[in-house]
């Protein structure tokens, strides 16, 4: 059954009228200040990068910061790297922060060979190979004490030779395998707003980000897709810890970053079955919401004010 997202939205809006899900606000484009592409040249004062719009140049301010697995100087960056630029609020052409070769691996450990892990990132995504370098093994061991098949894994790092170098653990791993995840307690009353954790993923896996439309996609993978229809016959999602309503591809979510107050309407574009197993709490700011409510694309996450190296922000989700 083909998914015609535009038809779904149009027909849903026509049938529901005022009850229809919110439309995106064109004046509040969440990725207005975020640019992604391939680094072409970098100097002490400016850089040029290939983006889907062509070659674009940005200048640096004194406050500009650079990240490549850790805080680095511009001299540590090389042409050819995948870069994401968040512009200064007052001027789109001034870089506020730049991330290079940003990568993340979220899912269930499928195999382990010494310091190399193969992680199952969900039924609709390829498995990702991640290595934990010696310099990161200490902090990884604190928050991910069991690097064994069947246990959850979530870390941010950088791409290197088609593999993820996992450098920063972005959650505390549960001490039980996924087969023993407790069932969600009964939900007696549905609430239209759900608080929890918003995380990010890179649909392009860092490849050809100047031409790959997935690299600049706006939207969110949702961990509570309707099982029989949109999640598909191989669906491996778990019942989410947060009481999320069941939706389909094409639905719209209003997400508010509880730390910055910024909000936007984003479309549901994929299944986030891997995140459905996490019942963690984000420590970005004070919030009691537990469980992952949306897995934003990298650009949407940064556009909503998230720090990719932190891995999450506390969010409130409203449907309809």
């Amino acid at each position: 059954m083909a998914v015609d997202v535009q038809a779904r939205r149009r027909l849903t809006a026509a049938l529901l009228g005022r009850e229809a899900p919110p439309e995106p606000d064109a004046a509040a484009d969440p990725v207005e200040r975020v640019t992604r592409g391939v680094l072409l040249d970098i100097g002490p004062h400016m850089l040029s990068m290939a983006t889907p719009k062509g070659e674009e140049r940005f200048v640096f301010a004194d406050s500009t910061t650079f990240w490549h697995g850790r805080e680095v100087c511009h001299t540590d960056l090389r042409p050819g790297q995948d870069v994401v630029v968040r512009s200064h609020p007052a001027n789109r052409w001034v870089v506020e922060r730049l991330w290079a070769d940003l990568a993340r691996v979220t899912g269930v450990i499928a195999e382990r060979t010494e310091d190399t892990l193969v992680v199952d990132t969900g039924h609709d995504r390829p498995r990702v190979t991640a290595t934990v370098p010696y310099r990161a093994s200490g902090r990884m061991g604190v928050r991910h004490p069991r690097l064994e098949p069947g246990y959850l894994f979530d870390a941010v790092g950088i791409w290197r030779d088609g593999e993820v170098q996992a450098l920063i653990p972005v959650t505390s791993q549960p001490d039980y395998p996924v087969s023993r995840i407790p069932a969600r307690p009964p939900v007696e009353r549905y609430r239209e707003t759900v608080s929890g954790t918003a995380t990010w993923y890179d649909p392009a896996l860092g490849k050809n980000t100047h031409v790959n439309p997935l690299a600049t996609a706006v939207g969110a993978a949702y961990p509570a897709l309707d099982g029989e229809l949109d999640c598909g016959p191989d669906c491996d999602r778990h019942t989410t810890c947060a009481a999320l309503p069941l939706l389909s591809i094409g639905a719209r979510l209003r997400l508010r970053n509880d730390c910055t107050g910024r909000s936007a309407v984003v479309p549901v574009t994929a299944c986030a079955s891997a995140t459905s197993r996490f019942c963690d709490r984000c420590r970005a700011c004070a919030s009691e919401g537990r469980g992952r409510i949306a897995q934003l694309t990298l650009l949407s996450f940064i556009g909503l004010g998230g720090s990719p190296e932190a891995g999450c922000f506390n969010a409130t989700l409203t449907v309809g």
Partner: protein
Amino acid sequence: MIDVIRETQLPVLAVLLLLAAVGKTAVRPSGAEGPMSLLPARVRRPAALATAGVEAAFAVLLVAAAGPLGDAARAGTAALFGVAVLALLRLRRRDPEQGCGCFGGLSSTPVGWRTIARAGLLAAAAAAALGLPVSGLAVATGFTATHAAVLAVELAVLGVLSPELVEIPRRVRHRVPCELREVPLSRTLRRLYASDVWHMNAEVVTTAEPVDVWRQECLRFVRFGGRRQDRAVDVVFAVPMDGRPPVVRALIVDVETGVPVASFGAVADPPRPRRAPEGETADSGRRPAPYEVV
């Protein structure tokens, strides 16, 4: 009197085993539950179904068989409950939060002394029935007042030892909200095909199967292709998960222009009551469906 007590065990055990088999088969635990969680994940469900099969077989034999076959079933039942006691003791040590899974997903209360005592009592009951010359069916057909009194006392004891008696009414009172409820597509289509709004539009629909189906919280949208007044149209139904009978809405949209040409059922936008043209409101007569031509 002792023989009456022993005889009463046969129908009691048979009914409980049958209920346990049905519970394990029909009410899937939402997490790993019961002694099955001591097994590897991939064999838990097959093992639960196999246990249900064994329980059902023992239930039938306890009712139907006498003599050596009946004694074998009683010994097997006693062994089954004996193993259950050991498994529950081990489960309680390993995972105190686990339910016993005795009646499938209905047994989600953490394993406690009541559940273990119940399994022990049933093992003793099955052992006590060893050597009886009659079958469970013969006991049921010749039930006396003494049997009934023994049965009442035993049911009261089993009721005290059964946490499921609290779980079942709670489940009946608090259903999962429709926004969160997993509903098979086949059930949605049955609700749609039984609705007045479907019968009103069935002639417009030209595709045998839905072209697209999607979910928005409590509603499933089902889209069909169709023709109306020689123009290609999309016929979209909004089928609610709740409500008896369900209040189904429908919308007919011109494929070429994208303009809605008619809507049926409850109108979502500001209601604009308007008399429908002749011939387009094939009403059921039981529950008039609001109709609007846009």
